[in-house]
């Protein structure tokens, strides 16, 4: 029984069948899944969701998969942690970390979108999957698609962090390192995608794939006791996650699963790649592409495909956007680890550093509930902090040496 009517162009509203299509052939607008919310409303309730296993598929009526999902069966429902020590450090009253740094199987929020994309690719009858990635998507496609039995072609920028290269190659896909930045990888993949009948998860499967991100937003609302927080800070690369978290909260409200969405959402980017933040600050909805230069490589997308929708969601919510330097990113990664025991990658550093900045600016009131989106794991981007966290204290294997070197 399907809850999906088909695909619909976000720009001009033309409708398309449920096929591996991703762009409107009239206006080039992106296609989005069109659900039958009336039917979903009659079948989905808080009680029904709560009765299901704690993974992302507990919201399956709101995901575009018609058959039984074949991937990501343990993905999602990651911890929402009340971060008392960060509250003290930032001087705020109620702050939560939504922690996808421990999202199974590959430790980033990308496992959510890939779970949907692969289930859909199988429904469409593909036997090969592919992606263009800044790293996390590469890890996730390489791992999840091997379980699902697909051939895998993965394209990354050649200068990616070692942890993300190893975390892909270990699953033995065809890994192609392209000389160029992510935007160039993306352009190349878009041309390759027209030549082969592959399921490119972020190209021809994109309308389905992107819906997986909504579960991150659903979980925040459910874990807060079926209510939306006042403020959510989201890291932005292509702009899809922030757009889908916003969509997810609005869908929950529409279905009566939460009473209202009184939430402001904020974009977090690195100063070296901040096209979405710039558009917000300049008050325009035209995204000017940039050439990225930041240690936050997972956010280094200079030409964000969903940038205009990210800006739209931020404006609609009454939120804002901010960017931070590479030094601020490293300090925030260290703060999160040393105060909450969470080791996040550079994107998480961006998000926490931006949160701190927005609180200091008075944009986020200190007494209202705040959710910080931590979407990836620090073990993958060790280069960013390796030289900035001191060294182990070396001693001889005897007590005298210990007591000489270690002052207790």
């Amino acid at each position: 029984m399907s809850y999906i009517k088909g695909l619909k162009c976000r720009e001009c509203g033309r409708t398309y069948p449920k096929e591996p299509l991703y762009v409107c052939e009239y206006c080039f607008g992106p296609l989005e899944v069109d659900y039958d919310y009336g039917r979903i409303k009659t079948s989905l309730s808080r009680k029904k969701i709560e009765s299901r296993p704690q993974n992302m598929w507990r919201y399956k009526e709101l995901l575009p998969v018609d058959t039984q999902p074949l991937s990501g069966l343990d993905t999602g429902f990651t911890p929402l942690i009340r971060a008392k020590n960060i509250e003290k450090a930032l001087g705020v009253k109620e702050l939560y970390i939504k922690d996808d740094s421990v999202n199974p199987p590959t430790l980033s929020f990308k496992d959510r979108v890939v779970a949907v994309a692969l289930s859909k690719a199988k429904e469409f009858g593909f036997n090969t999957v592919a992606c263009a990635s800044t790293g996390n998507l590469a890890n996730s496609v390489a791992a999840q698609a091997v379980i699902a039995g697909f051939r895998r072609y993965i394209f990354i920028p050649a200068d990616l962090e070692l942890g993300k290269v190893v975390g892909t190659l270990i699953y033995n896909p065809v890994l192609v390192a392209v000389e160029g930045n992510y935007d160039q990888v993306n352009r190349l993949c878009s041309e390759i995608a027209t030549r082969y009948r592959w399921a490119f998860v972020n190209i021809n499967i994109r309308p389905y794939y992107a819906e997986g991100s909504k579960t991150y937003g659903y979980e925040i609302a459910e874990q807060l006791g079926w209510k939306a927080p006042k403020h959510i800070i989201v890291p932005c690369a292509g702009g899809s996650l922030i757009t889908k978290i916003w969509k997810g909260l609005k869908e929950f409200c529409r279905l009566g699963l939460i009473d209202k969405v009184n939430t402001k959402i904020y974009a977090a980017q690195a100063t070296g790649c901040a096209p979405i933040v710039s558009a917000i600050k300049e008050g325009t909805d035209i995204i000017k592409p940039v050439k990225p230069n930041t240690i936050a490589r997972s956010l280094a997308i200079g030409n964000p495909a969903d940038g205009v929708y990210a800006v739209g969601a931020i404006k609609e919510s009454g939120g804002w956007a901010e960017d931070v330097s590479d030094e601020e990113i490293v300090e925030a990664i260290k703060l999160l680890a040393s105060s909450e025991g969470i080791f996040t990658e550079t994107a998480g550093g961006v998000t926490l550093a931006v949160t701190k900045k927005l609180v200091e600016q008075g944009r986020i009131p200190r007494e209202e509930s705040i959710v910080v989106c931590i979407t990836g794991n620090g073990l993958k981007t060790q280069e960013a902090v390796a030289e900035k966290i001191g060294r182990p204290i070396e001693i001889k294997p005897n007590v005298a040496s210990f007591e000489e070197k270690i002052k207790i």
Partner: protein
Amino acid sequence: MPIIVRIPTPLQKLTQNQTEVKVEGSSIRELIENLERDFPGIKARLYDEDGKLRRFINIYVNEEDIRFLKQDATPLKDGDEVSIIPAIAGG
């Protein structure tokens, strides 16, 4: 020597399923006018009603995004390669 233009899937119905076509033109704008002459209907897909390039279209000359060059006034010379590509999601 004409300019090679790579046509994205959504426009290939207009080019009789050709994935690459050869067209003359001294700028992107002129190139699109000439494409329209050879493949009627293509211009309206690329420009909106106000005569601006649609916001979800990326055009590249020899792999460089024309928004880093001179937009649709970007000059072209013989042997250049032009790609027309819909915006695609991050990863």
